């Protein structure tokens, strides 16, 4: 098993328990050991986040749909009582509130960043389109998809409501600004994948969008 195989296993199945072959590789590879340790720290820190109120069903349903669509969830059936829950169900606990959903998006950005940093300088130089991953996704694609889903949910909520206050206008205007900025940064990152500054701004823009959507959904939820 190679480093890339371990990354795929971690992406698809989570951290524990790693298959035997992956464990054997990790035991001999400091690079992968650090990756697993970093991810374990992130998950551990996320689990320590305080539990808050239950989120609206649509948040988890939307995420679940997305995870299923991407093949990360292969079996949506909830395990029988006493069975060990799959790792993604434990991960879903992170989304117990909109605030935590925002934090989780942040974590996804961090994980994406770590994955990117793991592409060491000794590896084959990336061509201009190398930001496009083997599965055709650009970096942060997972984050972008989750946020886009949330944005669609939000638009549905707004269609149901009639709120047109100064605050709502401000939110909408600023969401448009962040979307435009994300589009700018994405174009740049596709043109110049090694532009660290552009990547940093793209990452920050996603974080801001997550926070903004969270605030907008909270407000919509309190109004309707």
């Amino acid at each position, binding site marked *: 098993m190679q480093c890339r195989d371990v990354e795929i296993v971690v992406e698809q199945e989570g951290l524990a328990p790693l298959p035997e072959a992956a464990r054997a590789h990790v035991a001999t590879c400091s690079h992968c050991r650090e990756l697993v340790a970093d991810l374990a720290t992130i998950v551990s820190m996320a689990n320590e986040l305080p539990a808050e109120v239950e989120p*609206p*069903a*649509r948040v988890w*349903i*939307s995420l*679940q*749909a997305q995870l*299923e669509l991407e093949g990360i969830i292969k079996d949506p059936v909830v395990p029988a009582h006493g069975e060990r829950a799959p790792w993604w169900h434990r991960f879903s606990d992170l989304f117990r509130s909109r605030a935590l959903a925002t934090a989780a998006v942040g974590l996804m950005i961090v994980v994406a960043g770590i994955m990117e940093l793991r592409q060491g300088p000794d590896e084959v130089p990336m061509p201009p389109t190398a930001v496009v991953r083997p599965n055709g996704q650009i970096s942060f694609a997972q984050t972008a998809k989750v946020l886009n889903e949330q944005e669609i949910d939000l638009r*549905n*909520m707004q269609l*149901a409501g009639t709120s047109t*206050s*100064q*605050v709502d206008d*401000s*939110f909408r*205007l*600023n969401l448009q*600004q*962040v979307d435009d*900025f994300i589009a*700018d*940064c994405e174009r*740049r990152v596709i043109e*110049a994948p*090694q*532009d*660290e*500054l*552009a990547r940093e*701004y793209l990452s*920050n*823009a996603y974080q*801001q969008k997550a926070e*903004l959507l969270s*605030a907008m959904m909270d407000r919509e939820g309190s*109004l*309707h």
Partner: protein
Amino acid sequence: MGMRMVNLSALGSDLKRGMLPVLGAAAFLCSGLPAAGAAAGQHLEKHFTVKTRPVVVIHNVANGRIEVKSWKNSEVDVLASQASDKIGFDMEQAGDRIDVTANILNPSAQPRELEANLQLTVPEETELQLKTETGLIYVEQVMGDMTLESVAGEVHLKEVSGYIIVRTTEGSLVCTQCAGKLDFKSISGGAQVLQPALTNVSLFTTSGNILFDGDFVRTGLYTMKSGKGLVEVRFSGNDSFDLKAQTTMGTVDNQAAAYLKPDSHGMMHRASKFTKGLFGTVGQGLAKVELSSYSGTIRILKRD
């Protein structure tokens, strides 16, 4: 899956619609108790005696300003004014924590009816957590950590110190003679930091402008980033800092070339081939200043 989402959303909406009259009536009755004196166009004043450094939490969902000033008394004074009876105030004290919340009692009220201003006088050493949507947040001469959040309202701070966290969507920050640490994040709001004594500054805005006009404290760390806006730093001839300025698509306008020397610490800095950058040292390079903009202008100049 899509059908399930629609059904659940509809169920949630129905439940919320069904509960609204009940909740509205309950909120009206409850809010009437603590804020009985605050009718339309009237004022409500409350005094809370505190022992040590109090924590004051304000959540103003109405339109209006929150003004906080300090005095020598061990007492928090809250003066609330409202434009209509469609807003209710909840105030409570738990030890040295004072919570004030302005609630909208009638969601169909017009914006002008939802105006609620809060004027607080607090001990000099007070921690603040203030949250508002559209009104100005003004804090003067308060020492203590503070978290200030606003959607569209501006945040003005004068002579405050502590760990200051400001979050806005489009509201701008003006921080005059502030000390301690400042952490500002906004989407379209700008930040002006004037005559500061701040040891740690982190300013980030997607499209707002940033102005830092003042001295850099030795050993201080200063990070200022704007996605599309202008980042301008005006320093004095006595300052001592290492400078790193970078932009991807914007420009660096160096109007202080005479004061910037090559880095004196032996570290060779160079902009990557994807960015335009400026690296240098003013004085001995004791503070660290990092400026960046994705597509805006970075301007560095010396004050007269």
